[in-house]
């Protein structure tokens, strides 16, 4: 039919989506088949479930609870550096977890700045390992995200409403009841659900700051069952449980969440007429300063403690860095090969199923996929030899939901705007892809590729399952250095990793926008 005429075919996208679904469910099935019937969960498994839920709840409530006053202060104050601060709030998304943890250790750890300060006063050092350490790290990562989500809610209140409220003589309290409280009631559940879902599948944080019977997440338990006991049955059982939990949480988060927190326009300052009393100014200033210090201090600590060790870095670190660059490059290519056809197919109106396939990456746990791939590969080849491509593939699937959120709206605009013009010029298939779709989507492709590269560069997940002692990516090598108490080398390597991640993001994102016409 003529109204179905399209300049490109949705078929590659449908194929890519099918591949993703096959990977996620195939590995799950592989794991499930190994799960032993009737074995059930032991006490330690239930402890892992309890800990996972407890830390996710605490992390969500603390992150969002603290984000509300910070977002409010950011929404109603204008000051020098506001724009930079809001941009920085987006940075933890691509910040390698292991780097942040080293930074947090440097500040809050046993030998960290705070403990040293306390020691001068003759007090006991603070304890970072365990539940509160895990929650602290999660708040570090998710406070900025929650702040951006809530700030978005504030920015979406039309300026006219504030003007009207000011005209009616509304004070801060009335403003709160009229405008802010209804907005928060709408936004906060979504923010809570997103942070909760993210923290459920936390692995690297639990691996480094948790551990032991009292602070093990399900992901960590999968890793331990697999790596230490080689108990595939138990790993499979835990994997199934993890998938149910994250799947449910992801569905809830998607249903209640509004916006994704990396939208543009957040740096727009809103003109307001309330909150001008000195005490309000002081409180807002305090919230902004505290949040900024909390976020910047660990990063500053990494730079300070990493610099001295840079010259004497062991060769193993540079080898690992090379591996990480290779993994990130391969992962980015794989991501684009999956995401671009899928985004195009969604733009052509084949939404539903394909978008769902893309979102699966949010629910699937990398360790479950990793375990499944291991089980599948094991009889055919040496899984450890395939560590690099497997890590890249899993990272690509994990980045897919974010990439689709970036690419789909743009693909829809391009197809909607230029699809008919192209058709009327008999421009279909490759000429349309090369001459119109890709050039018009370049800024978004660059952004998505930058995110994917940075996420993959800093990922400490599936690689921990697959690496043998001779092979490591940089995050894993840092973890090993930490395990060997070589903290100076670890900090220096973390600085290298930080630079690599940021550079990968910056180059790809900039490259996409370079000379791009509006």
């Amino acid at each position, binding site marked *: *039919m*003529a109204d179905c005429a399209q300049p490109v075919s949705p078929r590659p996208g449908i194929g890519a989506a099918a591949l993703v679904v096959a990977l996620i469910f195939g590995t799950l099935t592989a794991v499930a088949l190994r799960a032993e019937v009737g074995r059930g969960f032991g006490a330690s498994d239930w402890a892992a479930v309890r800990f996972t839920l407890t830390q996710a709840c605490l992390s969500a409530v603390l992150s969002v609870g603290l984000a509300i006053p910070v977002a409010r202060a950011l929404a109603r104050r204008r000051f020098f550096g506001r724009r930079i601060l809001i941009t920085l709030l987006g940075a933890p998304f691509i910040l390698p977890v292991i780097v942040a943890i080293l930074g947090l250790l440097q500040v809050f750890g046993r030998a960290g700045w705070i403990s040293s300060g306390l020691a001068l006063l003759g007090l006991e050092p603070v304890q970072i390992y365990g539940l509160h350490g895990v929650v602290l790290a999660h708040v570090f990562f998710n406070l900025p995200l929650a702040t951006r989500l809530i700030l978005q809610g504030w920015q979406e209140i039309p300026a006219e409403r504030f003007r009207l409220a000011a005209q009616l003589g509304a004070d801060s309290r009335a403003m709160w009841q009229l405008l802010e409280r209804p907005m928060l009631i709408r936004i906060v559940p979504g923010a809570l659900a997103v942070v909760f879902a993210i923290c459920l599948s936390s692995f690297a944080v639990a691996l480094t700051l948790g551990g032991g019977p009292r602070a093990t997440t399900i992901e960590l338990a999968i890793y331990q069952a697999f790596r230490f006991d080689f108990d595939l049955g138990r790993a499979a059982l835990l994997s199934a449980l993890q998938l149910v939990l994250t799947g449910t949480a992801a569905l809830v988060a998607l249903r209640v969440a509004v916006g994704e927190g990396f939208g543009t326009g957040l740096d727009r300052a809103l003109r307001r007429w309330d909150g001008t009393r000195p005490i309000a100014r002081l409180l807002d200033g305090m919230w902004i300063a505290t949040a900024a210090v909390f976020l910047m201090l660990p990063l500053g600590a990494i730079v300070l403690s990493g610099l001295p060790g840079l010259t004497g870095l062991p060769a193993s670190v540079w080898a690992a860095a090379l591996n990480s660059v290779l993994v990130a490059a391969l992962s980015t290519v794989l991501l684009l090969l999956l995401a671009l056809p899928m985004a195009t197919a969604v733009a052509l109106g084949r939404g539903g199923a394909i978008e769902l396939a893309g979102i699966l990456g949010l629910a699937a746990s990398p360790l479950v996929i990793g375990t499944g791939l291991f089980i599948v590969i094991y009889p055919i080849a040496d899984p450890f030899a395939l560590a690099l491509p497997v890590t890249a593939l899993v990272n690509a699937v994990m980045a897919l939901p974010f990439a689709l959120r970036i690419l789909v709206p743009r693909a829809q605009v391009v197809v909607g705007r*230029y699809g*008919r*013009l192209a058709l*009327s010029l*008999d421009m279909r298939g490759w000429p349309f892809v090369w001459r119109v779709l890709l050039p018009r989507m370049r800024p978004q492709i660059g952004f998505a590729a930058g995110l994917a590269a940075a996420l993959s560069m800093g990922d400490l997940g599936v690689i921990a399952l697959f690496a043998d002692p001779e092979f490591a990516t940089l995050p894993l090598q840092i973890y090993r250095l930490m395990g060997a108490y070589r903290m100076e080398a670890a900090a220096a390597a973390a600085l290298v990793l930080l630079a690599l991640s940021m550079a990968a993001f910056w180059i790809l994102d900039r490259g996409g926008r370079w000379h791009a016409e*509006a």
Partner: protein
Amino acid sequence: MLRLENCLIENSGFALRADLTITRGSRVAVIGPSGAGKSTLIETLAGFRPLTNGAIRWNGSDLEGVEPGKRPVAMLFQDGNLFPHLTVGQNVALGIHANLRLDQSQQAQVQAALVRVGLDSMADRKPAALSGGQQSRVALARVLVQGRDLLLLDEPFAALGPALKVEMLDLVAELVEETGATLLMVSHDPSDARRIADQVVLVADGCVHAPQPTAPLLDNPPPALKAYLG
């Protein structure tokens, strides 16, 4: 000759009937109230909408199932007629070959079309560097190299100022005169119709009326047209 035989076009609860003939080489203005289906008619002719019933024939051959790019049709849309990331020359070259691989004679053809619309020095610029009128000229240069029998205009000059619009309409009139193409242009301004169209097709009340000579129709409008013109 363009023939619409017992055509029924349906579009989400809205139906448009058409049964008429447009002779080759005529210049037809399609007028009528907004929402009456002028654009729907043009889009159907261009192949972007299916016919529920009936047939569209060009010189006797049925266009049913023929893809938009394979029809004897060149079309200009309300906006977005140029690709902003391609140069003026490339945008025109698309009218010859969608993959932009042109031989020397084809390149000469592009250059000649740009000369004809007075933009030969602009071939290497991007559309953003051009004025609105110049952008319209680029699109018309592409129509020239496309060399199709039917030219469909869905108000591509609506965003231009009055003087510039008149200039573009005059250029269109000259171009169809030179190429012998048949012109169908949507318009909501009767003075556009008087300026370049020799016939008018009225679209109103779910019906595309048969073409009638412009001046007598506009001077002495039937009730449906009178209601629209006011």
